[in-house]
Each structure stands twice: as C-alpha cells, then as structure tokens.
C-alpha cells in the first residue's frame, strides 16, 4: 500500500518536472535569444497573445465554435453510425448491396472530401459539422457493424428457444452486445470529430480555432499559433477524459472489478 502511494507521488513529481522544464526552458530560451521567436514562443508571450485575442473578443467565439462543431459532429455522427451499424446486419440483402459503397466512402481521406462539404454547406458551421459527422460516422459504424455481424449465435438461439421475437432479440442481445464497440467507436470518434471540425476550418472558414491558427500562421503571429494549438490540445484532452468516463456507463460489466 505504502509503496503504491510512494510510487504515485514519484510519478506525479516527475510529470510536474517535465512540464516545468518545457515551460521554463522555452521562457529562458526565448528571453536569452537561444530559441528563435519565429519558431517558438515563451509561455509569457503566449499569455500576451491570449490577452490580445481576448481583448479583440475573438478567442471565446473561436473556441466556442470549434467546440460546438466537434460535439455536434461527435453526437450526430455517433448516433448515425450506431443506428446504421446495428440495423444493416438485420437486413442481409441491403447490407450486401451497400457494403462496398460504404467501404469505398470510408477509404476517401477526409481532407479530400472536405471541399465538397464546403461547396454543399457553405463557409459557416454547417460544413464543419458535416465533415465531422462524416468521419465520426465511420469510426462508429465499422466497429458496431463488425460486432453485430459476429454476434454470439448461442445467445440468439437461447432467446429464440425461450420464444423471443426478432424485436426482443434485437433489444436484448444485439444492442447490448454492441456496447463495447460503441465505446470503442466513441473513443476513436471523439478524436476524429475534432480533426473533422478543424480540417473544415482550414479549408474555408471565417471563425473557429482552426481559422485562428491558419490566420496566425499566415501573419507569422507565432504566439497566437501556439495559443490555438494549446487550446485545441486542452479541449482534446478534456474530451477524451469525458469519453473515458462514459465507459462504466456503457459497459458496466467490463468495469466491475470483481472477478
């Protein structure tokens, strides 16, 4: 017990040290001219950039827009991927017909298809949400679809012997047994949702963190560029923590530690 506590303390101290070295290093490196101001920014410069963006009144809206696009893309894309992944195996013929089309669509890199979404949905939020939905859909659809194809036949047979209807089998076996895959889909999808939103903003946009980063890069405003990257990194980390926390809700039996 004591050893574990000790070790945990050591690990946390180590992490703190790494952070201090990075922040202190860049701060001192910039101040004494060891690091180029064009390529690197010190924490204090980034903070100044943050104050400037804040004063302009653009930081919060930029952050809010990207967060909104990401969350909406994640939610809608996941729901759609889940629904299609669960229903398609129930319709054997339809699934045989459209499976190759889905696989080809999935193979197209998102950056290639992004301009099309801009064309369809315009420069605003809708195109970014659309791109995000598009990649999240596949991140969710593929694991859910594969798992519903590999359903445990014994469980289905057992329920049929008990007189279960198709609907009962769907809700009592098919849906719950896909939950581990839904969780996997959410984990992959949460990262992709953000990528989709930012790629959309990179291709064409008037606002959002991606827009801010692209603008900063174009104007050689290195501190704002770092500010954008850090903001996205913090949001991505929080999103991933939130999705991890959903695990015990979606698949409680995998997280119950009694063996």
């Amino acid at each position, binding site marked *: 017990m004591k050893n574990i506590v000790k070790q945990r303390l050591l690990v946390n101290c180590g992490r703190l040290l790494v952070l201090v070295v990075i922040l202190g290093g860049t701060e001192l490196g910039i101040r004494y001219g060891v690091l180029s101001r064009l390529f690197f920014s010190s924490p204090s410069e980034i903070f100044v950039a943050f104050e400037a963006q804040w004063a302009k009144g653009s930081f919060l809206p930029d952050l809010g827009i990207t967060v909104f696009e990401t969350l909406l893309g994640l939610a809608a894309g996941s729901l759609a991927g889940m629904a299609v992944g669960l229903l398609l195996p129930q319709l054997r013929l339809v699934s045989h017909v459209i499976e190759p089309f889905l696989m080809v669509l999935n193979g197209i890199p998102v950056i290639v298809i992004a301009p099309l979404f801009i064309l369809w949905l315009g420069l605003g939020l809708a195109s970014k949400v659309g791109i995000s939905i598009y990649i999240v859909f596949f991140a969710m659809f593929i694991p859910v679809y594969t798992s519903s194809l590999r359903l445990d036949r*014994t469980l289905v*047979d*057992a329920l*049929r*012997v*008990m007189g*279960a209807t198709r609907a009962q089998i769907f809700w*009592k076996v098919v849906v719950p047994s896909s*939950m581990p895959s839904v969780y996997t889909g959410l984990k992959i999808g949460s990262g992709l949702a953000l990528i989709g939103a930012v790629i959309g903003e990179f291709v064409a946009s008037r606002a959002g963190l991606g827009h801010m980063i692209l603008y900063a890069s174009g104007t050689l405003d290195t501190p704002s560029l770092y500010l954008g990257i850090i903001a996205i990194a913090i949001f991505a980390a929080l999103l991933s923590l939130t999705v991890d926390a959903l695990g015990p809700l979606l698949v409680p039996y995998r997280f119950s530690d009694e063996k």
Partner: protein
Amino acid sequence: MLEFRNISFSFTGRRDTIEVLRELSFGCRENEIVAVIGPSGCGKSTLLSLATGLRKPTAGQVLIDGRPVDGADPRLGMLFQQSTLLPWRSVVENVELGLEIRGERKGPRRQRAIALMRQYGLAGFERKYPHALSGGMQKRAALLQTLAIEPKVLLLDEPFAALDAQTRVVIQNDVVKICRAGKRSMVIVTHDISEALSMADRVVVLSRRPATVKEIYDVPFSREAESVADAPAMPGFADYYKRIWNALDISIGGMNAAA
C-alpha cells in the same frame, strides 16, 4: 411426452445434400430421463434443434403431448453447451430472462428468480455479473435460467462438457434431482457414456451419419443410485459401458476411425 417420429433431416450445401438424420424415432415419457449418445458429428445436436423449433425436420414430426412442435414451445426449455448468460446482465436478470420475454411483470418475475437462486445455492450472487461466478456456478445459473419458465420438457445439449470432473458430477446430480422432483421429461445429448449411464433411465445409441436409432438400453443406475457419483460403482455399470462402447462402433487405432 416428447416424441421424435420418423425424423429425417438433410442439409442442402452448395454442392450436395448431406443427409444427417434418417427415419429416426424414439420418445421420452413424463418423469423420464433419456440420454442420446452417438459418434461425434452424427447429428445429436441437430436432433435437439428440431425439438426446439430452431430447425424444421425434412420429414417426420416432433411431438410434445401429441401435438407437433411449431416454433418455440413454451413447454420446453433448453440448456446449451456454451454459456447462455448475457454478460451485461446481473445473474438475477439472467435467471428471469425467460419470464421477461414472456412479458411477465418485473415484481413477480424478480421474486421467482430470487427464490430459485436461494433454492439452488446461488443466494448472494443476485447482483453479480456472470463473469464473477465460477464455471460451475455459471452453469447452475444457466440451468436456473432454463428452469425459471418451468418447462415440462428439458433438453440438454452436451451441457457439462466444459466443466471440471468434480463440478460436473455435482451439477449432473442437481439436474437429475430437479428433473425427478418436477416430474419433467429430459433428453440429454452427450458423448460421454458414463454421463449417459449415470443420469438416464434409457440410453439411445445413434449410428454414424445418416444417424438412425441403433440400440436403446433401459438402465437402472440413475434411479437406484444414491447420487450420480455412486452410479459407476454399481454392479452391471461396467457391463453396460462396454455394450454401449461396442454399439458406438468406434475403432481405436484403426484406419476407419469415425473422426
């Protein structure tokens, strides 16, 4: 009670038709345990799936109380070789699954499941997930899942194959007692001659594919022995063992082995 009348069954494969069962007839009376034994791959399990309505015979009929089986029959329960416990449900939710499928209200069905679990030594495990139980307890929970709907006919498809030798005897003994106490009919498919002799009142030996009834033996051990564990020590057991072994016609070391 349960009767297989002139059953034939063939699979139609891609190239040819495989005849699995040929004009097979035998019955299982009320309060009787019949073991069906046969060489590997002879279609023993197929036979049970015909009784459960999961498959339909090519010719002939399966009758319960003189009425032909058509789809899932509420008078019939089946214990499978693999686990049929849904891993995302607690043990008590698994035990009540059959009642739930029949649309019984939550209060009464929960009470019934809890009572069954108390009666058969699973008290205290109601809220656990199946994976927290030992193999023997999982099998017992699956048995209660089957018993909860109070079937008059119990079908067992090599249910104890995965259990260790000692646990197997304990569960075999439980099953025999439960079956006798409820005056149920039971058909157990097995490849284990000892299991057949110690549990059953009659042993039906099937031939190789296409399977027909080769021999039927009336055996006294199950009723006369104190428990399943005592049966092999009774006089005559070894003799029957040898006769059934010979009837199975499995050559050891020969080139014409059934495998």
